[in-house]
Every structure is written in C-alpha cells, then in structure tokens.
C-alpha cells in the first residue's frame, strides 16, 4: 500500500494539473479568497494551457540542444586527442556555474534582442553545464576492468564508445538532464521579463497588479511540471541503473 502511495499522488497531481489547464474556471472558487473583490482570480490575459505549452516548448528545445552539445563536448574532451582540454573544461564548467541565470539572460539581450531568443540562449547555456559535468563524470569513472575487457575483446575506439562507454554512462547523463530541466523550468519564468512567452507572464502580471492568485497559479503550474518531470526522469534513471547493473 505504502509503496503505491507516491505513484498515486503523482497521478493525482498530473490529473489536477491537466484539469486546471483545460478548465481553469472551475477552480475559481478556490482562488477567489486570495484576491480583492473586483480582481480576476484566474489569469485572463491569455490561455494558461497555451502558455504552459510554450513554456514547455522553450525548455524542451533548450534542453535538447544543450544535451546534444554537452554530450558531444564531453565525448570530445575524453578522447585522447581532446585530453588537453579536459582539465580546462572542468574549470570552465565550474566558473560557468557561478553565472546567475538572470545575468546570463540579461546579457543575452544585447546580443539577440528581446523575446524568446535570449531565453533560449540563457536556458541553453545554463542547461549545458550540469549535463556536460555529469557526462564527464560518467565517461571518466567507468570501471577499469570493464574498459580493459572491452579493449581486450578487440573493440575499436568507436565501438567501445557506442557499445560500452555511453550505455554505462547513460544513468549519470540522464541525471544531468534532469537537473538541467528542473533549473530551466524555473529559469524560463524569468524569461518573461524579456518578453518571452512563458508562465512567467502570469506571475509577473500577478506581481504588477498585486494579485496573489495569479502568482500562485503561475508558480504552482511550474512547480507541478518540475515535480512531474523530475520524477519521470528519476524513474528513467533508476530503470537505466538497474539495467546497467551495479558493478
């Protein structure tokens, strides 16, 4: 019974989220007490569902590109010809993570202007780091005996990469993607300050009109999305770890 509880709770969360996005009006009585008598309790300057989908699209695109680039870079610096860059890339990731997301976002504006572009760039750059770091961890911490056996079996460098190194690193890479996505989901809301269409619009509208219901619904939708995606990727990671066995 207890083991099922988290799964049931997540299912419920997903159902409530979908219900809220499709028919936000039916939740009005819940949010009504939070606002002034004349103020709207449900976001009325656009469709919540559309904003949610745009928000997710921005995050997915940024994470996808970040994953591809980060994994490629990590592969590059762990090959013998790229080994010179390994230590440097570690330091750069370390330095890069000290850049606050808002600063990255704000600094991207002069380069590309307002709208979705600076948000995508900020999310991409910021999302790159955890994925790169984790891929690097995965690729450099493979069991020595397994790597030795793979070479001894006569695999070429490329075969080793595709058949052994990447599959064995996959759980750690997925953990990096998970981290990156959760950060991106939250950072994307700030994108609305530079006119990107995300759920941040709802929150900022709430801040500007002193409407707690807006802030709450915007925040909770992003929070729910983050929890669901975090859990989904955690489950994927656990499955991959089980499959990869415990060496």
């Amino acid at each position, binding site marked *: 019974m207890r083991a099922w509880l988290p799964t049931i709770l997540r299912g419920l969360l997903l159902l409530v989220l979908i219900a809220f996005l499709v028919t936000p009006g039916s939740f009005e009585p819940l949010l009504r007490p939070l606002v002034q008598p004349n103020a709207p309790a449900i976001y009325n300057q656009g469709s919540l569902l559309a904003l949610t989908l745009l928000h997710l699209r921005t995050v997915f695109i940024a994470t996808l590109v970040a994953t591809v680039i980060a994994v490629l870079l990590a592969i590059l610096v762990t090959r013998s010809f790229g080994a010179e860059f390994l230590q440097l890339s570690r330091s750069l990731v370390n330095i890069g993570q000290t850049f606050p997301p808002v600063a990255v976002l704000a600094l991207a504006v002069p380069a590309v202007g307002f709208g979705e572009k600076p948000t995508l760039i900020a999310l991409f750059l910021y999302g790159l780091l955890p994925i790169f770091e984790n891929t690097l961890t995965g690729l450099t911490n493979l069991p020595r005996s397994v790597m030795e056996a793979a070479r*001894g079996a006569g695999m070429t460098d490329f075969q080793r990469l595709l058949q052994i190194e990447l599959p064995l690193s996959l759980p750690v890479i997925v953990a990096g993607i998970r981290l990156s996505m959760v950060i991106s989901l939250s950072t994307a809301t700030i994108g609305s300050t530079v006119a990107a269409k995300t759920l941040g619009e709802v929150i900022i509208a709430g801040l500007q009109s002193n409407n707690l219901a807006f802030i709450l619904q915007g925040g909770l939708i992003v929070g729910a999305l983050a929890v669901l995606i975090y859990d989904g990727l955690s489950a994927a990671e656990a499955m991959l770890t089980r499959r990869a066995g415990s060496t």
Partner: protein
Amino acid sequence: MIEIEAVTKLYDDVAVVDNVSMVIEPRTVTVVVGTSGSGKTTLLRMINRLVEPSSGAIRLDGEDNRSIPGHELRRRIGYAIQGHGLFPHRTVAENIATVPGLLGWEKSRIAAKVEELLTLFQLDPKMFGSRYPHELSGGQQQRVGVARALAAEPNVLLMDEPFGALDPIIRAKAQDDLLAIQKHFGTTIVLVTHDMDEAFYLADKIAVMDKGRVLQYGPPAELVRAPAAPFVETLIGDAERPFRLLSAAKIGAAVEPGEADGEPIGEDGTQQEALADLLWSGRKALPVVSASGAPMGRVTLDALLKCAARPQ
C-alpha cells in the same frame, strides 16, 4: 606458438620489461610469476598489443603481431582478467557473444556457441543466459569471463590474475575447470599470477620475472631443482621445495607394478595429493587407476619420498 623476441617496454626511459625473449609452445600452459611491478602484466599485454613494445617483436605462429591492426589481433586472442570485467549492461549471453558479434558471425552460430560454452562451464544456458552479471556469484562471473574470452575459439588465451578475486575453494575449482577446458580446446594459455601454488599447479612451464627481466623460464621441477637466481629460490621457498616438486608431477610418473589395499587414486592427480592421502590414511601404498578406472599398479610412500628429495 608465441615467439617473444628481445622485447623491451620503456615508460619514461625506465624499462618495465627489459629485453625479454621466450618461446611458448602451442597447447601448453605457461605461467608468468613475479611480484607486483615485475613487468609480468605488461609483458602479457604486449602479446595482444594492449601495450606496444618499445623494441623487439612478438610473433604468433610465425606471423608478426603488428601485421594486422590491434583490434583485429585482439579479436583472435582470448583475454580474461582479474575481476572478470564483464559488461554490466549486457546479459551473460550477450557478454559471451561479444567477440563473435564483432567478427560478424551469424546469429545461429553465435547462439550455438554461447550455449556450448555455458554448458561446458556448468551454467544452465536457459537459466543464466538472460541474467545480468550482477545477478551472478563471484565464481559464476569469473566463469562467464573465461567463457567470453573463449567464445571466438582463439588459439591463444591470455589471462591476467584471472582467479585473484576468488575465495580459495572456488579458486581451486576454477583452476581444475581451466585445465579441463585447456585440454578440451587445446588452447595455448599464458597466465599471469603472483600465487606460486597456482603457478605450480597449472603450469607446463613457468617464467619468473623480476624488475622487467625473465630470471628463469622452464618446467616447474627445473625451477625447484636448479633455481637460476636467489630470487627464484626465495619465491619458491625453502620449506616448500619438496612439496612443490610433488605438486608439479603427476601420480602416473611414480606408479610401480604391484598391489595395494583401500580406496584407489587416479593417475591424473598430483603426487602431493597422493602423499597427503598416504599420510592421512596411515598406509604405505595406494592403488592407482587410470582415468577410465582400469588398475595401473600402485604408488608407495618410499617412491614419493624419492621424488620429493633433492635431485642428485
């Protein structure tokens, strides 16, 4: 046949393997012993070119091992290591199928080979084939590791401390299995270990290495009888000498005509086993039978004592 000719490996101008030459006969078990840092593993890894020699040459059946790319060479040579190195994300069957897969064998041929090997190593193919390495015991993992090394029917099998991680009981069983399998396939085995008991039990010939050099290379009895260097003597151990001689020789070599009472012993066993049996049961002689069970004569305590004595 493996011919190692004046092979040297330098790391930062330090010779880890120093001008080693030796010839390994086909279908034999050669054990390379030495302390850690003696260069024995490097020597082994130069045979399948996991390490490239700084100078010298290694020939397999007359062919220089640099005549084909390293990865192709390694597909033709079996390789088993300590801690087995099984691929944790692949099933037992997939692990064993690794090299045949790389060589592009047909699926049916690979499946048949996997089944044959699993059966040979006393692992039920139906039960174990689909399991993952972490679901096996240490001894089973080690057997799968050796099976994987043998999957493409290599003439040569290189083993680097293959039994190092096993507990003594499972290790003894694994050693017996290895000898049986070597007989079955006629594989040439080169095995690296620091365990002298293991060396004497398995080897047709032992090479003793120290500081990158081969100090002595010959049959086990020769090492005891005429150690070429003080280091070899130390490694064998003064108190162990008679027993090493007995453990390196088969009972068959000490059989004499005649009869004896009690439980017979097989001619395949080592003379050390026969001596132990005699001492424990308080007898003076044991009946000896061949592998098929036919009586061959007897082995006496006196004969064994002569075998264990310092050769004149």
